[in-house]
């Protein structure tokens, strides 16, 4: 059983299109996240979400929006895709815990290529 699963694994699309990446976790975790990994392998937080609060990294364009139909899912919608959006996007989950004493479980990533 995959703990955190993302689909699709690869996504190639044209500039201006709207696309979604799905994420599901079966760990019963309280909090889910989206990270973006650039070409230099730097991982940057985009969103964190639990059933109480959505925290958005202020540097994320509003073309990106997370949508959570339930506690086990956090999907990422991207409108009007741009070339600079090309990256690997990772979904992750963790138990809600102050001070980050619990580790994150990551999905295997979605490689988005905008052409």
């Amino acid at each position, binding site marked *: 059983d995959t703990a955190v699963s993302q689909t699709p694994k690869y996504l190639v699309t044209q500039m201006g299109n709207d696309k979604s990446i799905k994420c599901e976790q079966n760990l019963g975790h309280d909090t889910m996240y989206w990270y973006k990994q650039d070409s230099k*392998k730097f991982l940057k937080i985009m969103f964190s979400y639990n059933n109480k609060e959505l925290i958005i990294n202020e540097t994320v364009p509003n073309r990106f929006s997370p949508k959570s139909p339930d506690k086990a899912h956090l999907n990422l919608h991207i409108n009007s895709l741009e070339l600079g959006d090309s990256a690997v996007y990772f979904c992750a989950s963790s138990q809600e815990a102050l001070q*980050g004493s619990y580790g994150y479980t990551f999905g295997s990533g979605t490689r988005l290529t905008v052409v």
Partner: protein
Amino acid sequence: TQLLEQSPQFLSIQEGENLTVYCNSSSVFSSLQWYRQEPGEGPVLLVTVVTGGEVKKLKRLTFQFGDARKDSSLHITAAQPGDTGLYLCAGVTPGANNLFFGTGTRLTVIP
């Protein structure tokens, strides 16, 4: 803003050698985690350290959290080809729950 700087950025060593990776910051962290990422996969948690000065061992890997909780190190003894990967430190700042990642160290162990 780059909160966590790792060094070296790249490291290529022979099987059986020892190595140390450093993770440094000017910020204090309430906890620090180390992950290993392999190509085409997400990062996988290796260890979490929460107390200043804490040392944890995971087989041939030794992790240390600095006394001031601003830095950490990962030491690998007798490296093996299976240790090859991208090593990432990640910290949680006090009062926050989000994990901020370091710049990464790409390790290659040559058989």
